[in-house]
């Protein structure tokens, strides 16, 4: 297995003795990925500030997963309905949503449980997104359940011979749940394979429990290989490698109608959640900084514009928080809304 970047190759320069770096992706795309990664990070840091300010009850999110989540979001066939990709994501998916075009303010509305929150109307935690217009299905707290629900959307897509595929993501510790195994079993049945891209973002932690001691397999991807699922292990902190492999795997799933699997090593930069303090950890790699350094070195971005973007995004987050503070909150009576999708009143007192 290779966890080193394959994207940065060296090319001999005729003019200088210093080798010029070749990125393997267009400069334009690299700039876009960097901007999205930075935007996502600054958004997550804003969410943590909101938590610390007492404007939100709980934070959980994806700082440290930008190198994987952003390319994933950029590569999605985005839209609503069976012809587009379905996303069954978990609670570290801000980078993916940012790449798809989510503005900060919507994430902040969710964090601050406002009735304007477009995902849950103030009912659920941060990073528990839901955007039907992009087939982003409700993120739920129970670990791993998305891996079995993904089977259903993939099944419908398979029958419709849809150009869309199903994408499901989760963490490493959660793969111990039976639902992960169910996903491998159901999606790989011979002749009935399902068009699913299955990913595991391996940050080597499950809250406080280390990866070591929890696994007998050499890598999680080996479990997929046992089901004849095409699998790859990548450095998820490298957006270029991530982009290339996700693209390749998505094309495979789309063309063959079969599952593919990616295990991406990522960082967990603010601990598990606000319950563990949400403090920055210094002993894990920061994918945003790493990519920034690379792009600066290659000259794809400039220090000055980085500072400008940072300032802009920070300002956007700050302003959004101020605005959302003024927005309405859900009322107590609204607990009875949206229980049944028809005219049936859900409250037995009203039967």
């Amino acid at each position, binding site marked *: 297995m290779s966890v080193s970047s394959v994207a940065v190759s060296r090319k001999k320069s005729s003019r200088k003795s210093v080798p010029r770096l070749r990125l393997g992706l267009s400069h334009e795309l690299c700039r876009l990925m960097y901007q999205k990664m930075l935007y996502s990070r600054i958004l997550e840091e804003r969410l943590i500030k909101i938590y610390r300010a007492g404007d939100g009850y709980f934070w959980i999110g994806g700082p440290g997963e930008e190198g994987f989540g952003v390319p994933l979001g950029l590569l999605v066939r985005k839209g609503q*309905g*069976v012809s587009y990709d*379905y996303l069954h994501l978990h609670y570290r998916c801000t980078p993916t949503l940012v790449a798809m075009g989510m503005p900060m303010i919507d994430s902040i509305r969710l964090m601050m449980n406002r009735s304007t*929150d477009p*995902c*849950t*109307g103030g*009912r*659920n935690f941060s990073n528990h997104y*839901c955007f*039907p217009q992009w087939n982003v*299905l*409700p993120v*739920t707290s*129970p670990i791993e*359940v998305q*891996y*079995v*629900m*993904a*089977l*259903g*959307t*993939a*099944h*419908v*897509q398979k*029958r419709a011979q849809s150009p869309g595929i*199903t994408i499901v993501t989760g963490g490493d510790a959660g793969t111990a749940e*039976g*639902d992960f195994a*169910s996903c491998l*079993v*159901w999606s790989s*049945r011979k002749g009935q394979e399902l068009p699913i891209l299955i990913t595991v973002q391996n940050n080597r932690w499950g809250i406080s429990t280390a990866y070591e001691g929890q696994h007998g397999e050499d890598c999680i991807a080996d479990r997929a290989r046992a089901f004849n699922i095409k699998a790859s292990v990548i450095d998820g902190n490298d957006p270029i490698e991530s982009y290339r492999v996700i693209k390749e795997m998505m094309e495979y799933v789309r063309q063959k109608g079969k599952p593919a699997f990616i295990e991406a090593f990522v960082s967990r930069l603010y601990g598990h959640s606000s319950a563990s303090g949400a403090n920055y950890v210094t002993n894990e790699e920061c994918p945003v900084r790493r990519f920034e350094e690379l792009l600066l070195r290659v000259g794809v971005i400039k220090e000055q514009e980085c500072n400008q973007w940072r300032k802009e995004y920070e300002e956007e987050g700050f302003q959004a928080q101020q605005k959302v503070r003024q927005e309405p909150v859900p009322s107590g009576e609204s607990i009875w*809304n*949206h*229980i*049944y*999708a*028809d005219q*049936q*009143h*859900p409250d*037995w007192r009203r*039967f």
Partner: protein
Amino acid sequence: MANMAQAIRMALHYAEENYQLHDVFGQDVGAPLGGVFTATQGIQCAWNSPLDERGIIGMAIGIGMAGKRCVAEIQFADYIFNTMDLLKLAGNMYWASHGQYSIPIVVMTPVGAGIRGSIYHSHSFDSWASRLPGWKIVLPSNPLDAYGLLLSSILDPNPVLFLPPKALMRVKGKELIPGEPEDEKELKAMIDAPIGDRTQWKPRWPRLKEYLIPLGKGRIVKEGNRVTLVTWGRYVGICEQVIDDLIASAMIDSTDVELIDLRSIYPYDWPLIKESVKKTRKVLFVNEDTEVTNFAEHLSYRVTKELFYELWAPPQVIAGRHVPGIGLHPNLEDASVPGADEIKKVIIALIQEVP
């Protein structure tokens, strides 16, 4: 007359022809068996799933998320328990997404005792299911109701638990399903798969008609004036027999007991119960799920609270004993679920009670 398994089959066939039902699935649901109770035999869109209950419910939710209908079967309710949090999710998806994702699926699983099924083929699920907000929960007590309730369940935009009693699957009805041939031999020849090689077999379906029973509506099985007996599922037939026996042995009058088949656990038909109890002033609830936090306790509580000053006797609940399972020997099973004698005694005691 069709039995309940045949009625379910006919409903599924009607739905695959008319309601865009494309997926009926579960363990052994597809060919060649067509379900361990044969309830899915001959259904074109029925397919066999892996032996994985969580996978089955997850698949169903996913199909619902894509806006499609399906009927997913858990072979016996006894094996649905490890899917509990997925059932909760299906029930809360519309709510948690603030009305953005409804899950229009049906989960069908046979419930209850009565087939000498021992510890793991006798479980009930109605009271458990009553704690799953967002679901509608129905139990048919006869083939025609199974047909009408299943069609309504499939059309419903919410998740619906359809709980046919195991012991009633082979029991014939008293009324024809719309379109069913009068001669039951003819029906059998048309839609029952032959014993042995079935590879060439295809069902010949009768010209079925739509028949919808609204979810949440009960039915007065038998009118009466002095005691209301509310039950559902397998116990509708048992209670009917109990009442007939009491009348036949002149222990009660033919108009003493009003028998209600609740049909839906949630939403439930409160106006029907209320009107009946206001008339009889006495009520007995009977069902076979275990007695502690039994759904009938909720109904009994509500009757007590809302009709207290109208009552001439304390509301009664007869339910399954709070024991870990139903033992195989008939003595064990009979001691675990409500028995005819017990029901008779309570009916008579209620009639005799003077406030």
